[in-house]
């Protein structure tokens, strides 16, 4: 009750402050114009559908590629040093490189080679997202793999399971469970970064909003696209919070593992 009233008072104070700023009327008209919202809706929503499709394929690509990278980085034995080094170098490079630059290089540079068949812009956008996000997600997977106690590998190997089967049947299932909240968080981050493929010229929600903005001389389409991205992310955000809370209560219940 107290929290509700305090929230309400706080919101009202903020509202009156914003509404009474000298430029509010102008800002309201150029950012929150309902008619412009309506006019921009069809194109922006069509663009968002492209974002969702890119997100879908990028997420699958990231999971597969990141798991591969993490597996390589956790290989034991001196024989695999070159592989480990390549994977480590990869994650260093792509965690450091701004996504937008990767997008430019992949989106404009690679097709420029002329060695590959022509692909739509969103294809290259998806590739760039996979390259960048795999580097982050691979580190999350690696942390998960290394958090599984060595005695679990020992027990699995003692049963006669091979290295690969131990990884697949014993280590990875436990590792993935442990890092699921972190993975979901990365997914949410990627959900909004999908909008960056607009820099390649792919007509996604952001690009569509840009076109509408240019036609209406009004920024409202950007706000619309932004709100739609938030709506898109909300279910996943809630799910992540719920799952993390559940894991926490389970661990606090005093399990042995």
């Amino acid at each position: 009750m107290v929290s509700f009233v305090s929230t309400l008072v706080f919101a009202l104070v903020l509202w009156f402050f914003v509404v009474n700023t000298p430029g509010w009327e102008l800002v309201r008209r150029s950012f929150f114009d309902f008619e412009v919202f309506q006019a921009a809706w069809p194109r922006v929503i069509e663009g968002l559908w492209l974002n969702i499709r890119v997100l879908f394929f990028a997420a699958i690509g990231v999971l597969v590629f990141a798991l591969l990278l993490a597996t390589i980085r956790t290989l034991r034995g001196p024989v695999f040093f070159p592989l480990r080094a390549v994977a480590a170098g990869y994650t260093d490079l792509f965690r450091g490189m701004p996504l937008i630059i990767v997008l430019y290089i992949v989106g404009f540079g690679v097709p420029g080679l002329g060695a590959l068949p022509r692909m739509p812009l969103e294809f290259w956008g998806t590739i760039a997202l996979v390259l960048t996000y795999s580097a982050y997600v691979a580190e999350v997977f690696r942390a998960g793999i290394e958090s599984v106690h060595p005695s679990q590998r020992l027990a699995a190997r003692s049963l006669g399971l091979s290295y690969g089967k131990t990884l697949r049947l014993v280590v990875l299932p436990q590792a993935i469970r442990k890092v699921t909240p972190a993975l979901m968080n990365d997914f949410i981050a990627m959900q909004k970064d999908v909008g960056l493929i607009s820099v390649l010229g792919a007509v996604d929600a952001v690009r569509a909003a840009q076109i509408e903005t240019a036609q209406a001389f009004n920024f409202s389409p950007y706000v619309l696209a932004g709100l739609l991205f938030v709506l898109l992310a909300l279910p996943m955000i809630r799910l992540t919070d719920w799952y993390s809370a559940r894991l926490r209560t389970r661990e606090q219940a005093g399990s042995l593992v």
Partner: protein
Amino acid sequence: MSVVVKLENIHKSFGNTDVLRGISLDVHHGEVVALIGASGSGKSTLLRCVNLLEQIDDGQIWLGGDDISNPQVHPDKVRARIGVVFQQFNLFPHLSVLGNITLSLTHVKKMKGSEAQAHARELLAHVGLAEKASWYPDRLSGGQQQRVALARAIACKPEVLLLDEITSALDPELVGEVLELVHTLKDEGTTIMMATHEMAFARDVADRVFFLDNGVIAESGPAGGVLENPQDSRTQAFLRRFSG
């Protein structure tokens, strides 16, 4: 009696520490052999060498007549012929009790799923945990977990069962149920090599006892003899500390 495990002049060192300094012993079919000795005397390392979790520096190991210390031998194939139970149970927390037992049956023995489950249920009934098949390990008591670990270890009908201080992590009141099960396994003719601190149990179940001191076998012989009438001064000193 046929020899199941034969160790000859086993040497193993970690860095500058010589853990095993020439261990030779035979384990016969159906025999229970207990390894006793202070912490750090090399008991656990010796067991780990037998199933190739540690690579020996020198010596030879035979399992059922095969030289398994030969580098040509595939360790996974050897390990599938040996059952191991650890001090800390090491059950797989993401698998049910049944899943823990069927894992090696389906993926090492290549048994069909239904067949493996039926066999696993039999084993669970045998260790007195039939009704816990669908439970997850973290819901079980330590004693129950260790009985599941024993069932998992014998699922593939190993030629020898290695028990590495399997009661050391248990609450005192849970030790009995596990030791009782080991006794049952012995009666069924299982060949067992066990490292243990339970002297009373060693006397009760073991056919022969090996006292390890500083990486060598200081004394060995029938359980009653070594434990009740030790000849070596080191064994005498060790056992005196146990009886208090």
